[in-house]
């Protein structure tokens, strides 16, 4: 049994780093100690293709010295190397310009309930019992390559899968007494199936699951879902350009939320590089749009009790009934922007169901009647200053609430504020394995480019 969590000796090293920094002239410092271990088995067509063992340790230190600031990291965790590292780091920080806005978070803002690392119940002791045999059983047991028979419409070309289990352990300490720890295990299985149709065209489908608890992995069902997703794409067509009702599958819907959250971040706002500048407290979006930060849920993957500064996270509304309720302002940006600090980012954003609870993809397709169901994005981007976006998409045309045929080589283009103001529905079917809990979404009048 191997336990790759932080040891008392490693934790003591973090304390020594803080002591060294203060002894050499720093007024304040913060140390982040990270340790992780991952074992991975890759399979190709039901055979082991790759075995990987990863063990990482690193120390990062933020130094506040003579009104100046620098951040540094090293992965040589030896006493002599660390002392030399901190001395050189201080020398470097002293060369930079003063910045009065740099500071540690006030002790009253930091997390006090994360001393052990296991408070959220995200560490599964089963991770300590994993061995090569158990990993092989999961990785090979999940494969369906050898039992999948070709049909008249397709043959299976390849099944490329990875099983991994890992443990992440993070400790944040500062010279004002902060000491927070987060320990989490993770079990993950993902697979890409590639099929070939009768004309030789290839189509791939990906599916995965990730969970802190081994018992919830369900690897044995994943290949079949990936295969179903690949086969469903056979025979795609490009639709005419035009405005369509658009349903976004929960698997890919976070793509439409991430740019909103970035635009609410202090760094973008302070640089005038945000299309949500000056929107705090204003109704910007559709009444039905509410995004909560569901960040302190015990047992739920992605929950965190503190951010990278050690600031305590809070469950709260980010956008509520279309009104912007929160910017993400860390200690530095708060001082620069003369605003009250919050947390540095959305930890576990969750789009709330609307117009009622219990909707899933099927019911939303029925509600919308006819349009395009987007099941994946292929590239694209958005303009952080204007919110204009353009994404490549893959998915399906639907009519009378039923999928009719796959579509390809199409683009979805518009403005994020306009898009979200056209929100028709938000489901109740976000996948718990994802870092952002975004359900199936439906929007009115979306521009698609095709033929």
């Amino acid at each position: 049994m191997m336990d790759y969590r932080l040891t008392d000796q490693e934790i003591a090293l973090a304390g020594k780093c803080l002591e060294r920094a203060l002894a050499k002239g720093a007024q304040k410092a913060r140390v982040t100690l990270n340790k992780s271990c991952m074992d991975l088995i890759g399979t190709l067509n039901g055979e082991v293709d790759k075995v990987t063992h990863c063990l990482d340790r690193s120390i990062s230190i933020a130094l506040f010295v003579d009104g100046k600031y620098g951040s540094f990291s090293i992965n040589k965790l030896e006493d002599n190397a660390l002392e030399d590292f901190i001395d050189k780091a201080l020398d470097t920080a002293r060369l930079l310009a003063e910045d009065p806005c740099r500071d540690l978070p006030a002790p009253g803002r930091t997390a006090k309930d994360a001393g052990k690392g296991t408070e959220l119940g995200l560490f599964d002791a089963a991770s300590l019992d994993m061995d090569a045999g158990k990993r092989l059983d999961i990785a090979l047991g999940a494969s369906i390559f050898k039992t999948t028979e070709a049909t008249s419409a397709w043959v299976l070309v390849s099944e490329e899968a990875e099983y991994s289990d890992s443990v992440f352990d993070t400790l944040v300490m500062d010279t004002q007494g902060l000491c927070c720890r987060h320990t989490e295990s993770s079990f993950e299985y993902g697979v890409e199936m590639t099929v070939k149709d009768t004309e030789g065209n290839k189509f791939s489908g990906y599916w995965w699951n990730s969970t802190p608890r081994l018992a919830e992995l369900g690897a044995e069902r994943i290949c079949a879902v990936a295969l179903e997703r690949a086969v469903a794409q056979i025979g795609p067509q490009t639709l005419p350009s035009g405005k369509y009702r658009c349903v976004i599958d929960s698997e890919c819907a976070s793509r439409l939320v991430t740019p909103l959250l970035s635009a609410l971040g202090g760094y973008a706002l302070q640089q005038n590089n945000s299309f949500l500048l000056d929107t705090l407290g204003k109704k910007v979006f559709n009444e039905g749009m509410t995004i909560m930060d569901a960040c302190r849920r015990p047992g739920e993957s992605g929950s965190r009790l503190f951010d990278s500064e050690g600031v305590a996270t809070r469950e709260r509304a980010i956008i509520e009934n279309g009104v912007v309720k929160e910017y993400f302002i860390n200690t530095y940006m708060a001082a620069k922007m003369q605003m009250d600090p919050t947390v540095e980012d959305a930890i576990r954003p969750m789009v709330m169901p609307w117009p009622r609870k219990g909707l899933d993809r099927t019911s939303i397709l029925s509600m919308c009647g006819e349009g395009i169901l987007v099941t994946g994005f292929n590239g694209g981007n958005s303009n952080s200053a204007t919110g204009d976006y353009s994404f490549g998409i893959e998915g399906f045309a639907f009519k009378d609430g039923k999928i009719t045929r796959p579509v390809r080589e199409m683009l979805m283009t518009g403005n994020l504020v306009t898009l979200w103001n056209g929100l028709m529905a938000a489901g109740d079917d976000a996948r718990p394995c994802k870092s952002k809990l975004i359900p199936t979404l439906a929007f009115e009048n979306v521009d698609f480019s095709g033929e």
Partner: protein
Amino acid sequence: MINDKRYYLDTFRVTEDDLRSLAAEGLRSGGDFCDLFFENTSYRDILLRDGEVSSGGFHIDYGVGIRVLCGEKTGYAYSESTDPASMRAAARAAAAITAGCAVGGDRRTSDHRHFGRPNPAADRYPMQMDWRTADISAHLPLLQKLESLIRSKDTRVVKVIAMLSSQVSDILMFNSFEEMKYDTRPMGSLVASVVFSQEGAVETKSVSRSFRMGAEMLTDALLEELASQAVEGIDERFAARRPKGGKMPVVMGAGASGILLHEAMGHAFEADFNRKGQSIFSDKMGSRICRKGITIVDDGTIRGNRGAVNFDDEGVPGQYTVMVEDGVLTSYLHDRISAKFYGVAPTGNGRRESFRYNPIPRMRATYMESGEGTAADIIASVKKGIFVDQFANGQVKIGEGDFTFYVKSGFLIEDGRLTMPVKDVNIIGNGPQALADIEAVADDLKIDNGTWTCGKEQSVPVSCGIPTVLVNNLTVGGE
């Protein structure tokens, strides 16, 4: 930069006997091949924000990656310490791949060998001023000068963020063929992100230069070039509109449009995807895939280029690899595994992000050789289409061949002339079809020296280039 062998052995605190012993440990229970990849990387950055260079830092990454191959199967582990016990433990972890795997027998002798010693005279990235010892305080005014230059060129500038980052990696490679390679890889990158404001509207632009060079790359000419590019085309950016979407001819401007080759073709030519039967080009070797006269290469030999390699990360010499010659697919991009599979010599494309990753086939500098037309004639030949020359990112679906790239700015083409500026549109196409649809190639090949980073499983620095080309029938996003 290439130092003498002793420098690298001392850096990693190993002897040549240690290397042999470790490679033997990896193969103790079977396997065909074992290689060791030692890395000591120093990364530094300084950042200008709101007129002051008030943040910066450095980061040190040290370790050794050990790979054991058993046929085409890979065992991989790494250690962040080079003490003998830690390295042996990593070798044993990598050797787990050999469970149930026969020793290769004559497979061992079929591999190409590269015993030549690293030659400083042939170094593709000599470093005159080592970033690790360069005076960081001398670099602070350079960022302030860059900001001043940018502001002096356009009164609409409201914010500038400028960042100088540098990285120097000492690399030592050894394998069970007893090949030993070593070099020191510099990389300097200068980036400026600028926010402009005009009558309440906001536009942003980011420009960069990146080279495998030392601090000598920081010249006044470089600052001037970057500042000029930062403000170039801003009038058009403010005036730009979304075009009407749909299929249309697309003229790709010389330089950064090389992202088309990277996404639409380059990834599909990477041999791992083909070996697994996943690539849309997996059964096209030797076939004509585009018109005569078109030659597409992946080149690791451009001195100082971001994609240059003295050796790839398997110790194979960097090369100029012709993937498409006169319209015919002639070579995939190989690492040692795929080269063995296809019975060809490795092409020097086995690359990795760091010692934490096993090498896989990756591009270096990917570009199309110049043709015979002119850019002006190509634009003049288009009745209604779009001209694009600035990009943000791209992506490809390997099996289907569908690729996209995001256009930051360009122009409509109407009756052979550039007219309305356009911006923020995605373009989508299919790799083989787009190749077949290349109608014309100009004589103005340009390599783009921005901070291109490819993200296939791991991040590696690359570059791309292309002459002006006309591609018929790409789908342009619009309203």
